[in-house]
């Protein structure tokens, strides 16, 4: 909201500089987002009359113009051509500094001297018009030698751009801001000039009004203004509006806007000649009704909206024939608009139900200065005071204007201002400091609250303008905020609370950190890929599968929630390949989503109005996916990475088990599941990326092997699924170990880890087993390979004798044979 400082100063004495005011306003929560100076740099510019225009020899773009600014002829070189002899134009004389800091100096060109500059409106910072000189005769009656600011009736002013929070509808006007300042600075707040109606003609002799639906319209006042002549506003009104960012249109429209900006009450003037029966009624729109609003759009009314709980209530203004005149509080129709020939006006000033206006304006995608104010809540008591101000302003240009007596005033349901009790100690409990009751009462009264002190309680009644103040405990918080605001947040004490409960991370959060640290230590670069992707990407891995969709995406290829991190990582890797930086391991930790109809674990929660519905939400699964994209990476490096991670996570017994049905996107014959042998749970998968996926996403990298490790963090964090190593450790034997190597020919269907695990239990002497070689060759039987294990044997009691070692060896071989493995 742009407010000229001169306007504020009409309501309260403000000797402060704009910068000082900014600090005070910020501290009141009325944040100043910008300060503009109007008319700055124009003090030296004067009105000059064009007396002679001559061409300059050898120059075809500029001419020599002789002007008179009251002190005799001045010669100026000028490039514009849009003026003629006798025109009055702005002259910036030598030494003048224009807005933007441009200083005018005497200049020689083409053998002549230019003694100043004739200016366009843009050069003066007055408008964007740069087509030629500003011709003053078109906008005013200029006098030679007069200061331009006087000629244009511009008073240099400062405009504050103030941001008003949604809970302060009362502050969304000049007087509201002035009230906060007056209270904070303990200065009196002045009232605006108000007109009074003529006493002998009654409004109801001319006009009629009524409210059919009192829950939609809390108050409807209709005033009649006669003997009107529509003409431009006085320049001071026009300038105020312009400074506040509104275009002056006519005295009637300008008065309406002026009152809205000054007091916060939107008003709507109708040409009485075009209102049947001179009657205005407010009612609910009926299904099937349509209205053409001022913006030329035909709108279907009373149609239920998409938004939750939006039943399609529209509040409309109708005339005596029940014809629609406008969408109440939002936008009028064209039929009864004020025109150049309007002489009698019906002026509506009303209070509409904020929620109805909010829903209606959202549904029709129609926001106006009026609807913005009504939906936040206009003071229901304000209407007739605003009309009195309206008439006072209009009388400036139409002194003969008549405001008929006893304006029509109908009431529906309006909110009753609550009375809030502040008990002794409430302020201290809320703010942590006890404030002086006298100051508190003075500040609240300054803001328009009515305060009764009874025993040790304050009974605080909100003014009608403060629709944000609630009942009960919530209202107490509202009033305490007002007390704190005027007192100044910065003057409140600070204390750091302590409590006996310890802080800390959960096991899950510590696990996340550990996993991240380990993989980063292994060289992983953490990426951040989009949560929202395209149908096409989703279909690459899960064609036809039901997906979680966004109703209102920013772009169609950002409309589906990801079900995997793999696609995004391959894409991110692909872009790095194109840049020549693809020799990298990328990783991401994040959530993937499954449609509740597809997953066995949908999340149920409450939603809808008052939480009355039970909603099924997508399953959210946190995963860590690593894409091994270095030149030598493949499935084996993925296994290598996992073996380190698994060790660091302290997993007791997770095996890499070849899977016949790996998840889509993984290489069908070079992938495996990570299976916890004790729980049987799958903790993730690893292997290579399916070449078809690489081809689809990164065509330039076709044939390149990409390793992948994809871990289900939900499973990993669940100790019933991911079995941790026991906390108990063993101390190694003090006697030497005997080391033997055994190579077996084993069927491909037997897992190396299973054979190893079996061998570990073949005899109590086994200290450790590790696979050190895998050998495949045509000389071996079909569908088999040779697995070579390094076996350490040891006793806790003595050094093993040769025969003990031999016996153990036989036991190992016998056990292997039971699994179909033969010694090679």
């Amino acid at each position, binding site marked *: 909201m742009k407010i000229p400082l001169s306007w504020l100063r009409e309501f309260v004495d403000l000797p402060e500089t704009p910068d000082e005011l900014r600090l005070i306003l910020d501290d009141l929560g009325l944040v100043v987002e910008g300060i503009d100076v109007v008319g700055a740099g124009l003090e030296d510019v004067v009105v000059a009359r064009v007396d002679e225009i001559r061409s300059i020899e050898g120059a075809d773009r500029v001419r020599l113009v002789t002007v008179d600014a009251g002190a005799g002829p001045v010669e100026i070189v000028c490039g514009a051509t849009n003026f003629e002899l006798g025109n009055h134009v702005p002259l910036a004389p030598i030494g003048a500094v224009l807005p933007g800091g441009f200083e005018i100096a005497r200049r020689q060109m083409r053998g002549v001297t230019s003694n100043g500059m004739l200016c366009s409106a843009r050069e003066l910072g007055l408008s964007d018009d740069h087509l030629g000189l500003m011709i003053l005769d078109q906008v005013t009656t200029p006098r030679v030698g007069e200061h331009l600011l006087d000629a244009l009736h511009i008073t240099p002013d400062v405009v504050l751009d103030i941001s008003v929070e949604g809970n302060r509808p009362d502050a969304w006007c000049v007087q509201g801001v002035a009230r906060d300042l007056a209270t904070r600075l303990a200065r009196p707040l002045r009232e605006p000039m108000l007109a009074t109606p003529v006493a002998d003609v009654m409004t109801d002799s001319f006009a009629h009004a009524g409210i059919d639906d009192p829950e939609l319209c809390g108050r409807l006042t209709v005033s009649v203004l006669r003997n009107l002549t529509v003409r431009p506003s006085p320049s001071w009104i026009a300038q105020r509006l312009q400074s506040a960012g509104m275009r002056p249109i006519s005295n009637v429209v300008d008065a309406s806007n002026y009152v809205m900006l000054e007091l916060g009450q939107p008003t709507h003037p109708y040409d009485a000649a075009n209102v049947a029966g001179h009657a205005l009624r407010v009612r609910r729109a009926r299904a099937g009704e349509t209205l053409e609003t001022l913006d030329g759009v035909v709108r279907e009314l009373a149609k239920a909206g998409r938004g939750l709980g939006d039943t399609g209530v529209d509040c409309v203004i109708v005339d005596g024939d029940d014809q629609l005149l406008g969408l109440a509080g939002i936008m009028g129709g064209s039929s009864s608009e004020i025109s150049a020939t309007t002489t009698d006006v019906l002026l509506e000033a009303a209070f509409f139900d904020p929620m109805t206006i909010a829903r209606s304006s959202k549904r029709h995608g129609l926001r106006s200065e009026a609807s913005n104010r009504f939906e936040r809540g206009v003071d229901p008591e304000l209407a007739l005071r605003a009309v009195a101000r309206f008439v006072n302003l209009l009388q400036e240009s139409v002194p003969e204007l008549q405001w008929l007596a006893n304006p029509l005033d109908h009431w529906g349901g309006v909110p009753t201002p609550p009375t809030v009790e502040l008990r002794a100690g409430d302020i201290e409990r809320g703010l*942590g400091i006890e404030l002086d009751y006298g100051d508190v009462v003075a500040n609240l009264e300054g803001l328009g609250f009515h305060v009764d002190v009874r025993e040790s309680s304050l009974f605080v009644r909100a003014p009608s303008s403060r629709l944000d103040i609630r009942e009960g405990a919530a209202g107490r918080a509202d009033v305490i905020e007002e007390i704190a605001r005027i007192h100044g947040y910065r003057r409140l004490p600070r204390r750091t609370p302590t409590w006996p409960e310890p802080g800390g991370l959960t096991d899950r959060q510590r696990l996340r950190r550990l996993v991240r640290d380990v993989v980063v230590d292994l060289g992983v670069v953490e990426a951040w890929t989009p949560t929202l992707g395209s149908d096409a990407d989703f279909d690459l891995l899960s064609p036809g599968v039901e997906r979680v969709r966004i109703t209102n995406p920013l772009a169609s290829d950002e409309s589906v929630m990801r079900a995997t991190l793999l696609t995004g990582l391959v894409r991110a890797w692909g872009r790095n390949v194109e840049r020549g930086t693809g020799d990298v391991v990328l990783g991401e930790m994040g959530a993937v989503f499954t449609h509740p109809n597809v997953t066995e674990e949908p999340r149920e929660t409450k939603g809808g109005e008052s939480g009355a519905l039970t909603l*099924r939400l997508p399953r959210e699964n946190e995963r860590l996916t690593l894409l091994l994209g270095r030149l030598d990476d493949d499935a084996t490096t993925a296994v290598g990475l996992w073996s380190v991670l698994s060790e660091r996570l302290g997993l007791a017994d997770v095996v*890499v088990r070849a899977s016949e049905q790996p998840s889509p996107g993984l290489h069908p014959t070079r992938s495996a599941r990570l299976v916890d042998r004790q729980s049987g749970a799958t903790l993730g998968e690893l292997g290579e990326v399916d070449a078809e996926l690489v081809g689809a996403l990164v065509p330039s990298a076709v044939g390149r092997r990409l390793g992948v490790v994809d871990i289900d963090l939900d499973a990993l964090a669940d100790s019933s699924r991911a079995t941790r190593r026991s906390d108990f450790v063993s101390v190694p034997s003090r006697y030497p170990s005997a080391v033997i190597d055994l190579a077996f020919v084993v069927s491909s269907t037997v897992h190396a880890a299973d054979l190893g695990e079996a061998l570990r239990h073949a005899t109590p002497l086994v200290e450790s087993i590790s696979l*050190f070689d895998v050998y495949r060759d045509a000389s071996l039987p079909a569908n088999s390979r040779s697995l070579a294990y390094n076996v350490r044997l040891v006793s806790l009691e003595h050094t093993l004798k040769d025969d003990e070692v031999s016996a153990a060896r036989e036991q190992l071989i016998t056990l292997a044979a039971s699994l179909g493995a033969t010694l090679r």
Partner: protein
Amino acid sequence: MTPSPLADLSAQTSELLSTIASLATLDELTEAEPRLTGKRSLLSTLQKSLGSLEPNARKDAGALLQEARREVQAAFEARRSTLAAAARAESLEADRLDLGDVVTNSVRWPVRAGHPGLVASTQRELEDVFVGMGFTVADGPEVESDWYNFEALNIPPAHPARGLWDTFYVDLGEPETVVLRTHTSPTQVHLMEEAVAKGSLPIHSVMPGRCFRRDTPDARHLATFHQIEGLVVDRGIAFADLAGVIETFTRAYFGPDIASRLRPAFFPFTEPSAEFEVTCTICRGEGCRTCSQTGWIELGGCGMLDPAVLSAVGIDGDEWSGFAFGFGIDRCAQMRHQIPDMRALIDNDTRFLEQFS
């Protein structure tokens, strides 16, 4: 009457089909394509011969021929996909590797430092500061119902305040009931509901996480971003405690010469509410372009829990009171590292990512 050029069509079609069926490899198939379905194939040649027929006969013969061509084409494509699948199966089989047989000791792993994500490491630093101050850390889901994201936070349906958040709606349930959370505040509601159900008040917790707003990305904002929020519900908590916690955090995270200050603001879920600002980290309060010469930078919002929120989750506001605060993790990272364009965070350019440790 001359014999129809299509007299042998049925036999010819059968022969073509059996030729197709006999193609054994993709190479053979590619090689045979011009002969079987191309412009110089038998059926194309027959097509040309139809020109000599009378219009009616030509129409009938054309239809017959068209049918035959369709059949041959379909058989050809079916054969192509069968052979392609077989070829893929064969190459996959040749490529087969039992990952259980990988000898991890022999995997060669190049030594190269990795780099944690900027958001993750910033989040960790912030968490550590709060954990040091006695806070626990809580997580929450990214998809929420309107109850948790809005209504329990005192933002009823169609309330103009909902316009403060540009919301992505998820196509589930009743319209506009499921959303991508626009802030981490729903986690506050979950925590409070849980504490009430378990009788485990008080709460001193921070809630980091990913949020979404339907806002076209630019240099300062991404549609996906990260917030951290704090929630304290305890006995005897006042605005002074909030101001003290903000100040302690500010000095702990940004350094002892950075201070905080509060100014009034509006949030539906807190009352009194405040915006909190910290000393500009660029100019250390002297005034510069980043802080518009004010010496202060807006960091986040905070306030005392609104009684309406407490009552929505069933907490007795006479016994308990509390405060909440929240700010952007990405914004902290942006301030610290002077990142001119936030979109660099989602470009995943390793030249950018490798700067963080």
